[in-house]
């Protein structure tokens, strides 16, 4: 299950909307071992594409080192799909390399309604999990 504050949920949605039609991406950092997202870290999509995302490698180094220094981990890794559903693609599954993270997928394919779903991806297996937004 993913428990996420309204504030963080809305920041992810706003980021996805702002970058549409390119895919948006980022991280929610939280204290190591607590499974609690606390800090919003939007990332540059170095691919700047409507169908692909990749963290800029230098930016990723900086963010990962900062999390290490703060004793945090990437609790959530999020990205958006801009024309397809908020479900992990084969590419998403093949490239998921953080076994401890919740993978949040957002879809901005509809102008009015943003889809927001969360998954665990382990050894090529996708398991959807419920999302609880805490007001």
């Amino acid at each position, binding site marked *: 299950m993913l428990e996420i504050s309204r504030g963080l949920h809305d920041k992810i949605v706003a980021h996805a909307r702002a970058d549409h039609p390119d*895919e948006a*991406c980022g*991280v929610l950092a939280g204290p190591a071992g607590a499974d609690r997202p606390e800090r919003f870290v939007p*990332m540059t999509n170095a*691919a700047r*594409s409507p*169908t*692909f*995302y*990749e*963290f800029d*490698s*230098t930016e*990723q*180094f900086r963010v*990962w080192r900062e999390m290490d220094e703060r004793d945090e981990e990437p609790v959530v*890794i999020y*990205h958006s*799909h*801009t*024309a*397809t559903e908020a479900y*992990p*693609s*084969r*590419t*998403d599954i093949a*490239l*998921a*390399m*953080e*076994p*401890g993270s919740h993978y949040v997928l957002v879809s901005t394919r509809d102008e009015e309604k943003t889809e927001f779903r969360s998954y665990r991806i382990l050894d090529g297996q996708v398991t959807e999990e419920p999302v609880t937004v805490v007001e």
Partner: protein
Amino acid sequence: MAIEVRIPTILRTYTDGAKQVEGTGSTLGEVLADLDSRHGGLRDRLVDGGGLRRFVNVYLNDEDVRFLDGLDTPVKDGDTVTVLPAVAGGALFI
């Protein structure tokens, strides 16, 4: 001559769970070969026929080695090599 190599979670199966291992060599390529002699299979996760694998980031101290000399990047005693899997994906089938 000791080079500290930081290992991401997903590759710690090769290091018996260690977050950090030590290697020796005068280039990044040599250090990875040295590590592979004690942690068999690790090098294959980082390198393929053409050099560093596409979705693996390797840094020498603060710099992505793709901006240096890749596997030929010289290393010296006290340097830190960090490996991070790239975070990537998307709707596109690659």
